[in-house]
């Protein structure tokens, strides 16, 4: 009996280092966020319990909801433009034989690099001083497309451009996942369909798309989670552009920097709950779709 207890203790000791770090930096902060959200905490004087005031402030704050709007705007672009582009690229690479590896390597460079590098590089590329005199406009002029030149990081275009840069950084990642999904579809299915007289469009809508559904759901959910929490690239690119491209995490970060920690925690909780709800809904919808099409879950 004694030796059994000793053995279990030895076994348990294997996870003790992981458990200590996890408790200190995940479990404690997780619950502390809830406590913090009910406090007025300036990180210097003693925290004060203020009930739901922080949440009231979050729900009535124009700045917060406009940052949610900006985040949602970029997310919509990422969901449509970025992911459709990624799917088209994956379908194309799946069709060709030559240069396949080259495209795979090149498309994945951007996801590997840091958000700060991408943000600062694109800022140099697009920012104009004097107005209109940036490299990108210069390039457009050189290509005879001078009529398209604009002040890209000025108030009129900054939001769309931020979304575009975000999509540009992220498409390679969705591309790799789509490509892996496409390559897992067995060739026999296409051969059988072709013998039955199906054309390319039929093959795509009846075989590729239904079998790709689990991968599509995955990419959609991860795009929403990733884009709604985007921050560093946008900070480096625009610094918020006077509210036009402030995103939720930027607001949280700023409030913490200005020692309004309780409000920052409340904002984090509101966003976290929304994100959990969205991803559960997405997985639920995709399960329904898969059941309808009679495709086995992967």
């Amino acid at each position, binding site marked *: 009996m004694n030796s059994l207890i000793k053995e279990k203790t030895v076994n348990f000791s294997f996870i003790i280092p992981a*458990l200590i770090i996890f408790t200190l*930096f995940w479990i404690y902060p997780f619950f502390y966020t809830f406590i913090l959200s009910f406090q007025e905490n300036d990180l210097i004087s003693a925290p004060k319990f203020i009930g739901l005031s922080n949440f009231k402030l979050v729900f009535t704050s124009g700045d917060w909801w406009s940052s949610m709007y900006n985040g949602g705007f970029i997310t919509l672009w990422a969901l449509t433009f970025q992911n459709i582009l990624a799917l088209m690229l994956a379908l194309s690479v799946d069709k060709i034989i030559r240069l396949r590896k080259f495209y795979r390597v090149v498309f994945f460079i951007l996801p590997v690099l840091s958000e700060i590098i991408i943000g600062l590089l694109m800022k140099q590329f697009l920012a104009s001083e004097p107005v209109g005199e940036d490299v990108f406009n210069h390039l457009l002029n050189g290509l005879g497309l001078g009529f398209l030149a604009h002040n890209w990081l000025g108030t009129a275009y900054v939001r769309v451009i931020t979304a575009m840069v975000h999509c540009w950084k992220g498409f390679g990642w969705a591309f790799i996942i789509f490509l892996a999904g496409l390559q897992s579809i067995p060739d026999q299915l296409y051969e059988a369909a072709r013998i039955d007289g199906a054309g390319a469009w039929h093959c795509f809508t009846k075989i590729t798309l239904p079998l790709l559904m689990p991968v599509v759901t995955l990419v959609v959910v991860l795009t929403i989670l990733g884009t709604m929490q985007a921050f560093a690239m946008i900070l480096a690119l625009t610094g918020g552009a006077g509210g036009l491209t402030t995103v939720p995490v930027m607001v949280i970060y700023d409030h913490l920097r200005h020692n309004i920690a309780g409000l920052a925690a409340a904002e984090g909780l509101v966003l976290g709950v929304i994100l959990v709800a969205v991803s559960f809904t997405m997985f639920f919808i995709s399960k329904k779709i898969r059941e309808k099409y009679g495709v086995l879950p992967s």
Partner: protein
Amino acid sequence: MYYRAKKIVILIILHAFLLSVALSCIFPFFWMINVSLKTPQEFDADYGLALAHHFNLDNYKEVILKAGFWRYFLNSIFYTFVTVVLIVLISSLAAYAFSRLQFPAKNVIFYMFLAAMMIPLPAGFVPVYILLKQLHLLNRTGYVLAMTNMGLSLSIYLLKTFFDQLSRDLEDAARIDGCNKLQIWWHVGIPLVAPALSVVVIFNALNVWNEFVLASLMFTNNNIMPLQVGLMEFSNRMVTQHTLIMAALTVAALPIIFLYIKMQKQFVRGLTAGAVVG
């Protein structure tokens, strides 16, 4: 004949599409390197679009030596190396135990680690920052510990599932030869999971190397700043010095691009590891 022609036309369209997107990925980096080799006067004249005629390394000298990028670089290497070593040791110990050993509350604790991976915490840095401040750990140690936690759950999950697929024959042999559990983990377990460890190493190394939010909150002292925070500070200070900023960006980006091209399979697996779990 008709089908052949049709096929060739389709191939040309596909390659034109793919090449134009590929060009958009590569061009800004060529431009970045090109500008970093120019003087400010040359940049003003052609926006860095004309090829630099000579290898003028003055910008690099200025950035690496005077602006202290050598230090940011070494700091980033330090944080990345220490964090990755810690994660590999701690997570492989835990993963081995979750896969092979019996102890109370095993499943509950494992599911806790899983839950940590799934729940999005957009403001996770707020309580962590306050905790580190209260513990007087707004320094190298605190940063390494917090970053270790960031990669722990996924690493444990990846290694545990890998251990689960391995046969226990070698471990049994080691036990008969008189190894204790710790020796089996070190001499048999770690070598066996080496393929999965490469994914764990790349995933976590990139994660630490590219991390910005927590580092920018924690470090105001230039001596212990990592590269990403140093870059941001430098670009805020040198707004109009385009050629210098480009040299700094090249210093930060080029080593990663080279490493990636050398080991792109591991990079792709490392970066998509998180997605596969979801």
